Protein backbone atom coordinates (compact mmCIF):
# COMPACT_ATOMS: atom_id res chain seq x y z
CA UNK A 1 0.00 0.00 0.00
CA UNK A 2 1.19 3.52 -0.78
CA UNK A 3 2.46 5.52 2.14
CA UNK A 4 -0.51 7.66 3.31
CA UNK A 5 1.91 10.31 4.53
CA UNK A 6 3.62 10.75 1.19
CA UNK A 7 0.93 13.20 0.09
CA UNK A 8 2.15 15.67 2.71
CA UNK A 9 5.74 15.58 1.50
CA UNK A 10 7.05 18.96 0.45
CA UNK A 11 8.55 18.85 -3.02
CA UNK A 12 10.23 21.60 -4.95
CA UNK A 13 8.57 22.74 -8.12
CA UNK A 14 10.92 25.58 -9.03
CA UNK A 15 14.30 26.32 -7.48
CA UNK A 16 14.79 29.82 -6.17
CA UNK A 17 17.71 31.18 -4.15
CA UNK A 18 17.58 30.98 -0.40
CA UNK A 19 18.72 33.56 2.15
CA UNK A 20 19.50 33.47 5.83
CA UNK A 21 17.88 35.63 8.46
CA UNK A 22 19.22 35.38 12.00
CA UNK A 23 20.66 31.94 11.36
CA UNK A 24 17.43 30.61 9.84
CA UNK A 25 17.74 29.50 6.24
CA UNK A 26 14.76 30.68 4.23
CA UNK A 27 14.52 28.66 1.05
CA UNK A 28 12.40 30.70 -1.34
CA UNK A 29 12.02 27.83 -3.79
CA UNK A 30 8.48 27.32 -4.91
CA UNK A 31 7.32 24.06 -3.40
CA UNK A 32 4.09 22.17 -4.00
CA UNK A 33 2.69 23.73 -0.82
CA UNK A 34 3.49 27.28 -2.00
CA UNK A 35 2.14 26.50 -5.47
CA UNK A 36 -1.09 25.16 -3.94
CA UNK A 37 -1.54 28.38 -1.96
CA UNK A 38 -0.85 30.42 -5.09
CA UNK A 39 -3.36 28.43 -7.14
CA UNK A 40 -6.02 28.61 -4.40
CA UNK A 41 -5.63 32.37 -3.98
CA UNK A 42 -5.46 32.98 -7.74
CA UNK A 43 -8.62 30.98 -8.34
CA UNK A 44 -10.39 32.84 -5.53
CA UNK A 45 -9.28 36.22 -6.87
CA UNK A 46 -10.32 35.21 -10.38
CA UNK A 47 -13.71 34.13 -9.07
CA UNK A 48 -14.26 37.46 -7.32
CA UNK A 49 -12.99 39.40 -10.32
CA UNK A 50 -15.36 37.63 -12.68
CA UNK A 51 -18.37 37.77 -10.39
CA UNK A 52 -18.07 41.37 -9.23
CA UNK A 53 -16.66 43.02 -12.37
CA UNK A 54 -20.09 43.92 -13.64
CA UNK A 55 -21.98 43.72 -10.38
CA UNK A 56 -25.59 44.71 -10.81
CA UNK A 57 -28.59 45.30 -8.59
CA UNK A 58 -30.14 42.11 -9.92
CA UNK A 59 -27.30 39.59 -9.48
CA UNK A 60 -26.26 36.72 -11.70
CA UNK A 61 -25.42 33.26 -10.37
CA UNK A 62 -21.76 34.00 -9.69
CA UNK A 63 -22.60 37.28 -8.03
CA UNK A 64 -25.09 35.52 -5.75
CA UNK A 65 -22.32 33.14 -4.65
CA UNK A 66 -19.84 35.95 -4.05
CA UNK A 67 -22.44 37.98 -2.18
CA UNK A 68 -23.44 34.91 -0.18
CA UNK A 69 -19.86 34.45 1.05
CA UNK A 70 -19.56 38.17 1.76
CA UNK A 71 -22.86 38.31 3.64
CA UNK A 72 -21.98 35.20 5.66
CA UNK A 73 -18.77 36.75 7.01
CA UNK A 74 -20.17 40.28 7.19
CA UNK A 75 -23.15 39.20 9.32
CA UNK A 76 -20.86 37.05 11.45
CA UNK A 77 -18.39 39.85 12.20
CA UNK A 78 -21.19 42.24 13.01
CA UNK A 79 -23.11 39.83 15.23
CA UNK A 80 -20.05 38.56 17.13
CA UNK A 81 -17.76 41.61 17.29
CA UNK A 82 -20.54 44.17 17.26
CA UNK A 83 -20.54 47.66 15.84
CA UNK A 84 -16.79 47.66 15.11
CA UNK A 85 -17.09 44.41 13.19
CA UNK A 86 -16.97 46.17 9.84
CA UNK A 87 -13.33 47.14 10.45
CA UNK A 88 -12.21 43.54 10.84
CA UNK A 89 -14.43 42.13 8.14
CA UNK A 90 -11.77 42.18 5.36
CA UNK A 91 -9.28 40.31 7.54
CA UNK A 92 -11.77 37.64 8.62
CA UNK A 93 -13.08 37.40 5.06
CA UNK A 94 -9.56 36.94 3.63
CA UNK A 95 -8.72 34.37 6.29
CA UNK A 96 -11.93 32.45 5.63
CA UNK A 97 -11.47 32.48 1.86
CA UNK A 98 -7.81 31.52 2.11
CA UNK A 99 -8.50 28.49 4.31
CA UNK A 100 -11.61 27.51 2.34
CA UNK A 101 -9.85 27.70 -1.03
CA UNK A 102 -6.79 25.79 0.23
CA UNK A 103 -9.02 23.12 1.81
CA UNK A 104 -11.12 22.77 -1.33
CA UNK A 105 -8.05 22.66 -3.58
CA UNK A 106 -6.85 19.79 -1.39
CA UNK A 107 -10.06 17.94 -2.27
CA UNK A 108 -9.01 18.06 -5.93
CA UNK A 109 -5.97 15.84 -5.37
CA UNK A 110 -3.18 18.37 -5.81
CA UNK A 111 -1.91 19.44 -2.39
CA UNK A 112 -3.50 20.61 0.82
CA UNK A 113 -1.54 23.62 2.05
CA UNK A 114 -3.67 23.75 5.21
CA UNK A 115 -2.42 20.29 6.20
CA UNK A 116 1.01 21.86 6.76
CA UNK A 117 1.72 22.89 10.35
CA UNK A 118 3.86 25.72 9.03
CA UNK A 119 0.80 27.18 7.30
CA UNK A 120 -1.72 26.72 10.10
CA UNK A 121 0.71 27.94 12.76
CA UNK A 122 1.34 31.08 10.70
CA UNK A 123 -2.37 31.74 10.25
CA UNK A 124 -2.98 31.25 13.97
CA UNK A 125 0.01 33.42 14.97
CA UNK A 126 -1.13 36.14 12.56
CA UNK A 127 -4.62 36.04 14.03
CA UNK A 128 -3.50 36.18 17.66
CA UNK A 129 -1.07 39.01 16.86
CA UNK A 130 -3.94 40.92 15.27
CA UNK A 131 -6.03 40.23 18.38
CA UNK A 132 -3.29 41.41 20.75
CA UNK A 133 -2.52 44.39 18.52
CA UNK A 134 -6.15 45.47 18.43
CA UNK A 135 -6.45 44.98 22.19
CA UNK A 136 -3.37 47.02 23.03
CA UNK A 137 -4.10 49.74 20.46
CA UNK A 138 -7.68 50.26 21.55
CA UNK A 139 -7.31 49.76 25.31
CA UNK A 140 -3.61 50.28 26.07
CA UNK A 141 -2.73 48.57 29.32
CA UNK A 142 -6.44 48.06 29.85
CA UNK A 143 -5.95 45.11 27.53
CA UNK A 144 -4.77 43.11 30.53
CA UNK A 145 -8.14 43.64 32.21
CA UNK A 146 -9.20 40.88 29.86
CA UNK A 147 -7.56 38.40 32.22
CA UNK A 148 -9.18 39.88 35.32
CA UNK A 149 -12.93 39.30 35.36
CA UNK A 150 -14.70 42.14 37.17
CA UNK A 151 -16.63 41.58 40.39
CA UNK A 152 -14.61 38.58 41.50
CA UNK A 153 -13.05 38.47 45.00
CA UNK A 154 -9.23 38.60 45.15
CA UNK A 155 -8.79 35.09 46.55
CA UNK A 156 -10.58 33.63 43.53
CA UNK A 157 -8.64 35.89 41.16
CA UNK A 158 -5.43 34.20 42.32
CA UNK A 159 -6.67 31.03 40.70
CA UNK A 160 -8.72 32.61 37.93
CA UNK A 161 -6.14 34.93 36.38
CA UNK A 162 -3.62 32.17 35.57
CA UNK A 163 -6.45 30.12 34.08
CA UNK A 164 -7.51 33.06 31.90
CA UNK A 165 -3.92 33.64 30.78
CA UNK A 166 -3.42 29.97 29.94
CA UNK A 167 -6.73 29.93 28.08
CA UNK A 168 -5.62 32.92 26.04
CA UNK A 169 -2.21 31.43 25.28
CA UNK A 170 -3.84 28.17 24.22
CA UNK A 171 -6.01 29.93 21.64
CA UNK A 172 -3.44 30.06 18.81
CA UNK A 173 -2.34 26.52 19.68
CA UNK A 174 -5.87 25.20 19.32
CA UNK A 175 -6.40 27.20 16.13
CA UNK A 176 -3.24 25.65 14.69
CA UNK A 177 -3.91 22.09 15.72
CA UNK A 178 -7.65 22.03 14.90
CA UNK A 179 -7.17 22.99 11.26
CA UNK A 180 -3.98 20.95 10.86
CA UNK A 181 -5.45 17.88 12.53
CA UNK A 182 -8.68 17.94 10.57
CA UNK A 183 -6.93 18.26 7.25
CA UNK A 184 -4.23 15.72 8.11
CA UNK A 185 -6.65 13.14 9.48
CA UNK A 186 -9.17 13.49 6.66
CA UNK A 187 -6.60 13.12 3.95
CA UNK A 188 -4.86 10.18 5.63
CA UNK A 189 -8.18 8.36 5.96
CA UNK A 190 -9.02 9.04 2.32
CA UNK A 191 -5.62 7.77 1.23
CA UNK A 192 -5.88 4.64 3.38
CA UNK A 193 -9.30 3.70 2.02
CA UNK A 194 -8.20 4.45 -1.55
CA UNK A 195 -5.19 2.19 -0.96
CA UNK A 196 -7.51 -0.55 0.30
CA UNK A 197 -9.43 -0.50 -2.98
CA UNK A 198 -6.32 -1.13 -5.06
CA UNK A 199 -4.83 -3.71 -2.71
CA UNK A 200 -8.00 -5.75 -2.23
CA UNK A 201 -9.02 -5.57 -5.88
CA UNK A 202 -5.82 -7.43 -6.72
CA UNK A 203 -6.85 -10.34 -4.47
CA UNK A 204 -9.61 -11.73 -6.65
CA UNK A 205 -13.37 -12.06 -6.20
CA UNK A 206 -13.30 -12.01 -2.39
CA UNK A 207 -11.19 -8.90 -2.45
CA UNK A 208 -13.59 -7.17 -4.84
CA UNK A 209 -16.30 -7.19 -2.19
CA UNK A 210 -13.98 -5.53 0.31
CA UNK A 211 -12.80 -3.19 -2.42
CA UNK A 212 -16.38 -2.21 -3.23
CA UNK A 213 -17.12 -1.57 0.45
CA UNK A 214 -13.98 0.58 0.62
CA UNK A 215 -15.07 2.43 -2.49
CA UNK A 216 -18.50 3.29 -1.04
CA UNK A 217 -16.87 4.35 2.21
CA UNK A 218 -14.48 6.45 0.16
CA UNK A 219 -17.37 8.21 -1.60
CA UNK A 220 -19.09 8.90 1.72
CA UNK A 221 -15.84 10.13 3.28
CA UNK A 222 -15.20 12.40 0.32
CA UNK A 223 -18.51 14.18 0.84
CA UNK A 224 -17.71 14.38 4.55
CA UNK A 225 -14.32 15.89 3.75
CA UNK A 226 -15.98 18.57 1.62
CA UNK A 227 -18.09 19.43 4.65
CA UNK A 228 -15.01 19.48 6.87
CA UNK A 229 -13.18 21.68 4.35
CA UNK A 230 -15.95 24.28 4.59
CA UNK A 231 -16.57 23.81 8.30
CA UNK A 232 -12.94 24.24 9.36
CA UNK A 233 -12.69 27.47 7.38
CA UNK A 234 -15.87 28.68 9.05
CA UNK A 235 -14.73 27.58 12.52
CA UNK A 236 -11.42 29.42 12.09
CA UNK A 237 -13.29 32.55 10.99
CA UNK A 238 -15.84 32.30 13.83
CA UNK A 239 -13.13 31.85 16.46
CA UNK A 240 -11.18 34.77 15.00
CA UNK A 241 -14.32 36.87 15.38
CA UNK A 242 -14.86 35.65 18.94
CA UNK A 243 -11.27 36.45 19.93
CA UNK A 244 -11.47 39.87 18.25
CA UNK A 245 -14.82 40.50 19.93
CA UNK A 246 -13.26 39.67 23.31
CA UNK A 247 -10.59 42.34 22.99
CA UNK A 248 -12.77 44.93 21.25
CA UNK A 249 -15.42 44.72 23.93
CA UNK A 250 -13.17 44.59 27.03
CA UNK A 251 -15.12 46.02 29.96
CA UNK A 252 -18.44 45.64 28.19
CA UNK A 253 -19.15 42.31 29.78
Amino acid at each position, binding site marked *: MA*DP*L*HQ*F*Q*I*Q*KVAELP*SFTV*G*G*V*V*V*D*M*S*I*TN*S*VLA*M*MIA*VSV*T*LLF*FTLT*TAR*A*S*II*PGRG*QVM*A*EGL*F*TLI*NDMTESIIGHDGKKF*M*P*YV*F*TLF*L*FILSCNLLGMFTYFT*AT*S*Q*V*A*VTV*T*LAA*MTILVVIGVGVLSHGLGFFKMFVPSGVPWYILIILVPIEVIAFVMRPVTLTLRL*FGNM*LGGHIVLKVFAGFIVTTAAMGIGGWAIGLASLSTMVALTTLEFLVAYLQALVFAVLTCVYLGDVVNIGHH
Partner: protein
Amino acid sequence: MTAVPTSAAPNTEGDVATSAPDTAPATTTVVSLVPGHGDDTHAAGGQTGAHGAGDHTTGTVGTTEHAKDHGSGGLPQLQTEHWAGQIVWLLIIFTVFYTLMATVFTPRLRKVISNRGSTIAEDLANARANRDEAEAQAKDAAAETAAAHTASRKLAAEALARSNAEIAAQTAAEDTKLNARLSEAEARIRAARDTAMAHVTEIAGETAQVLVEKLTGKPATAAALKSAFGKVS
Protein backbone atom coordinates in the same frame (compact mmCIF):
# COMPACT_ATOMS: atom_id res chain seq x y z
CA MET B 1 21.16 14.70 19.99
CA THR B 2 23.99 12.41 20.77
CA ALA B 3 21.76 9.43 20.11
CA VAL B 4 21.00 10.53 16.57
CA PRO B 5 23.96 9.09 14.70
CA THR B 6 23.53 5.71 16.36
CA SER B 7 19.83 5.62 15.66
CA ALA B 8 20.34 6.75 12.08
CA ALA B 9 23.12 4.32 11.35
CA PRO B 10 21.16 1.06 11.54
CA ASN B 11 18.46 2.57 9.44
CA THR B 12 19.63 0.95 6.26
CA GLU B 13 16.30 -0.85 6.01
CA GLY B 14 14.87 2.42 4.71
CA ASP B 15 12.10 2.73 7.25
CA VAL B 16 10.47 5.91 6.05
CA ALA B 17 8.51 6.57 9.19
CA THR B 18 11.42 6.72 11.60
CA SER B 19 14.09 8.06 9.29
CA ALA B 20 12.09 11.02 8.05
CA PRO B 21 12.80 13.32 10.98
CA ASP B 22 16.46 12.34 10.94
CA THR B 23 16.88 13.89 7.52
CA ALA B 24 15.29 17.07 8.69
CA PRO B 25 18.40 19.16 9.43
CA ALA B 26 19.81 18.51 5.97
CA THR B 27 18.87 21.91 4.66
CA THR B 28 21.93 23.69 3.44
CA THR B 29 23.94 21.00 1.78
CA VAL B 30 21.62 18.09 1.01
CA VAL B 31 18.34 18.88 -0.69
CA SER B 32 16.41 15.66 -0.50
CA LEU B 33 13.21 15.67 -2.49
CA VAL B 34 12.18 12.28 -1.16
CA PRO B 35 13.87 11.80 2.17
CA GLY B 36 14.55 8.50 3.79
CA HIS B 37 15.92 6.55 0.84
CA GLY B 38 19.09 4.61 1.06
CA ASP B 39 22.16 6.76 0.52
CA ASP B 40 20.35 9.97 1.30
CA THR B 41 19.57 8.61 4.71
CA HIS B 42 23.23 7.87 5.37
CA ALA B 43 24.32 11.22 4.15
CA ALA B 44 21.64 12.97 6.10
CA GLY B 45 22.46 10.96 9.16
CA GLY B 46 26.07 11.95 8.87
CA GLN B 47 25.10 15.55 8.46
CA THR B 48 22.86 15.34 11.48
CA GLY B 49 25.72 13.87 13.44
CA ALA B 50 27.99 16.68 12.43
CA HIS B 51 25.45 19.22 13.55
CA GLY B 52 24.56 17.28 16.61
CA ALA B 53 28.17 16.93 17.74
CA GLY B 54 28.77 20.62 17.35
CA ASP B 55 27.21 23.34 19.43
CA HIS B 56 23.57 24.04 18.69
CA THR B 57 23.97 27.49 17.34
CA THR B 58 21.85 27.38 14.23
CA GLY B 59 18.15 27.94 14.56
CA THR B 60 17.38 25.11 12.17
CA VAL B 61 18.86 22.52 14.46
CA GLY B 62 17.11 24.01 17.43
CA THR B 63 13.73 23.87 15.80
CA THR B 64 14.45 20.42 14.47
CA GLU B 65 15.04 19.19 17.97
CA HIS B 66 11.75 20.75 18.95
CA ALA B 67 10.01 19.04 16.05
CA LYS B 68 11.66 15.75 16.96
CA ASP B 69 10.13 15.85 20.40
CA HIS B 70 6.70 15.97 18.78
CA GLY B 71 7.45 13.91 15.71
CA SER B 72 6.63 10.50 16.94
CA GLY B 73 5.43 9.15 13.59
CA GLY B 74 7.68 11.15 11.31
CA LEU B 75 5.10 13.41 9.76
CA PRO B 76 6.50 15.26 6.74
CA GLN B 77 4.89 18.44 8.11
CA LEU B 78 7.32 18.41 11.01
CA GLN B 79 10.40 18.62 8.80
CA THR B 80 11.15 22.18 9.68
CA GLU B 81 13.60 22.85 6.87
CA HIS B 82 10.57 23.66 4.69
CA TRP B 83 8.91 25.86 7.27
CA ALA B 84 10.67 29.17 6.74
CA GLY B 85 10.07 29.21 2.99
CA GLN B 86 6.41 28.26 3.40
CA ILE B 87 5.86 30.88 6.10
CA VAL B 88 7.48 33.67 4.09
CA TRP B 89 5.56 32.70 0.95
CA LEU B 90 2.33 32.41 2.93
CA LEU B 91 2.85 35.91 4.36
CA ILE B 92 3.50 37.29 0.86
CA ILE B 93 0.49 35.53 -0.67
CA PHE B 94 -1.77 36.42 2.25
CA THR B 95 -0.72 40.08 2.16
CA VAL B 96 -1.48 40.31 -1.56
CA PHE B 97 -4.78 38.51 -1.04
CA TYR B 98 -5.73 40.70 1.92
CA THR B 99 -4.80 43.90 0.11
CA LEU B 100 -6.94 42.99 -2.90
CA MET B 101 -9.86 41.84 -0.76
CA ALA B 102 -9.74 44.90 1.49
CA THR B 103 -9.28 47.52 -1.22
CA VAL B 104 -11.16 46.08 -4.20
CA PHE B 105 -13.59 43.26 -3.58
CA THR B 106 -15.01 43.96 -0.12
CA PRO B 107 -15.87 47.62 -0.92
CA ARG B 108 -17.27 46.55 -4.28
CA LEU B 109 -19.55 43.92 -2.73
CA ARG B 110 -20.55 46.23 0.10
CA LYS B 111 -21.45 48.93 -2.41
CA VAL B 112 -23.55 46.58 -4.54
CA ILE B 113 -25.41 45.26 -1.52
CA SER B 114 -26.05 48.71 -0.05
CA ASN B 115 -27.07 49.98 -3.51
CA ARG B 116 -29.56 47.17 -3.73
CA GLY B 117 -30.83 47.97 -0.26
CA SER B 118 -31.29 51.65 -1.07
CA THR B 119 -32.89 50.84 -4.43
CA ILE B 120 -35.36 48.53 -2.77
CA ALA B 121 -36.06 51.09 -0.05
CA GLU B 122 -36.54 53.80 -2.68
CA ASP B 123 -38.88 51.63 -4.73
CA LEU B 124 -40.81 50.73 -1.61
CA ALA B 125 -41.08 54.39 -0.65
CA ASN B 126 -42.27 55.24 -4.16
CA ALA B 127 -44.82 52.46 -4.10
CA ARG B 128 -45.98 53.56 -0.67
CA ALA B 129 -46.31 57.16 -1.85
CA ASN B 130 -48.27 56.03 -4.89
CA ARG B 131 -50.53 53.95 -2.71
CA ASP B 132 -51.09 56.84 -0.31
CA GLU B 133 -51.85 59.14 -3.22
CA ALA B 134 -54.31 56.65 -4.67
CA GLU B 135 -55.93 56.24 -1.28
CA ALA B 136 -56.20 60.00 -0.89
CA GLN B 137 -57.72 60.26 -4.33
CA ALA B 138 -60.17 57.51 -3.53
CA LYS B 139 -61.08 59.32 -0.33
CA ASP B 140 -61.56 62.57 -2.25
CA ALA B 141 -63.70 60.82 -4.81
CA ALA B 142 -65.80 59.28 -2.04
CA ALA B 143 -66.19 62.68 -0.38
CA GLU B 144 -67.18 64.24 -3.69
CA THR B 145 -69.72 61.52 -4.31
CA ALA B 146 -71.13 62.00 -0.83
CA ALA B 147 -71.31 65.76 -1.37
CA ALA B 148 -73.02 65.27 -4.70
CA HIS B 149 -75.44 62.87 -3.02
CA THR B 150 -76.36 65.39 -0.34
CA ALA B 151 -76.62 68.19 -2.91
CA SER B 152 -78.92 66.21 -5.13
CA ARG B 153 -80.98 65.07 -2.19
CA LYS B 154 -81.30 68.67 -1.05
CA LEU B 155 -82.21 69.74 -4.55
CA ALA B 156 -84.84 67.06 -4.80
CA ALA B 157 -86.28 68.01 -1.43
CA GLU B 158 -86.35 71.66 -2.42
CA ALA B 159 -88.05 70.86 -5.71
CA LEU B 160 -90.56 68.73 -3.89
CA ALA B 161 -91.21 71.43 -1.38
CA ARG B 162 -91.57 74.04 -4.10
CA SER B 163 -93.96 71.96 -6.12
CA ASN B 164 -95.92 71.12 -2.96
CA ALA B 165 -96.15 74.80 -2.14
CA GLU B 166 -97.25 75.62 -5.68
CA ILE B 167 -99.83 72.89 -5.57
CA ALA B 168 -101.07 74.15 -2.22
CA ALA B 169 -101.20 77.73 -3.49
CA GLN B 170 -103.04 76.69 -6.64
CA THR B 171 -105.43 74.57 -4.62
CA ALA B 172 -106.04 77.47 -2.28
CA ALA B 173 -106.63 79.82 -5.21
CA GLU B 174 -108.99 77.39 -6.85
CA ASP B 175 -110.71 76.87 -3.50
CA THR B 176 -111.24 80.60 -2.98
CA LYS B 177 -112.46 80.96 -6.56
CA LEU B 178 -114.80 78.03 -6.15
CA ASN B 179 -115.95 79.25 -2.75
CA ALA B 180 -116.65 82.67 -4.26
CA ARG B 181 -118.64 81.15 -7.05
CA LEU B 182 -120.38 78.90 -4.56
CA SER B 183 -121.33 81.73 -2.27
CA GLU B 184 -122.41 83.76 -5.30
CA ALA B 185 -124.56 80.95 -6.47
CA GLU B 186 -125.95 80.47 -3.00
CA ALA B 187 -126.73 84.17 -2.85
CA ARG B 188 -128.42 83.96 -6.21
CA ILE B 189 -130.39 80.94 -5.09
CA ARG B 190 -131.31 82.70 -1.88
CA ALA B 191 -132.42 85.76 -3.81
CA ALA B 192 -134.44 83.67 -6.20
CA ARG B 193 -136.02 81.85 -3.30
CA ASP B 194 -136.74 85.10 -1.53
CA THR B 195 -138.24 86.47 -4.69
CA ALA B 196 -140.17 83.31 -5.11
CA MET B 197 -141.30 83.43 -1.52
CA ALA B 198 -142.38 87.06 -2.00
CA HIS B 199 -144.36 86.09 -5.05
CA VAL B 200 -145.93 83.20 -3.12
CA THR B 201 -148.00 85.61 -0.90
CA GLU B 202 -148.97 87.60 -3.95
CA ILE B 203 -149.95 84.48 -5.87
CA ALA B 204 -151.78 83.10 -2.85
CA GLY B 205 -153.64 86.46 -2.43
CA GLU B 206 -154.61 86.55 -6.09
CA THR B 207 -155.66 82.90 -5.92
CA ALA B 208 -157.59 83.56 -2.74
CA GLN B 209 -159.28 86.64 -4.30
CA VAL B 210 -160.19 84.64 -7.38
CA LEU B 211 -161.52 81.83 -5.18
CA VAL B 212 -163.42 84.25 -2.99
CA GLU B 213 -164.86 86.06 -6.05
CA LYS B 214 -165.95 82.83 -7.61
CA LEU B 215 -167.48 81.59 -4.38
CA THR B 216 -169.06 84.81 -3.18
CA GLY B 217 -169.44 86.78 -6.32
CA LYS B 218 -167.67 89.75 -5.02
CA PRO B 219 -163.95 90.46 -4.56
CA ALA B 220 -162.55 90.17 -1.13
CA THR B 221 -161.13 93.15 0.55
CA ALA B 222 -157.45 93.41 1.12
CA ALA B 223 -157.97 93.65 4.88
CA ALA B 224 -159.93 90.44 4.94
CA LEU B 225 -157.24 88.67 2.95
CA LYS B 226 -154.60 90.00 5.26
CA SER B 227 -156.38 88.71 8.36
CA ALA B 228 -156.96 85.40 6.65
CA PHE B 229 -153.23 85.11 5.86
CA GLY B 230 -152.52 85.94 9.44
CA LYS B 231 -154.65 83.03 10.60
CA VAL B 232 -153.01 80.60 8.12
CA SER B 233 -149.40 81.48 8.65
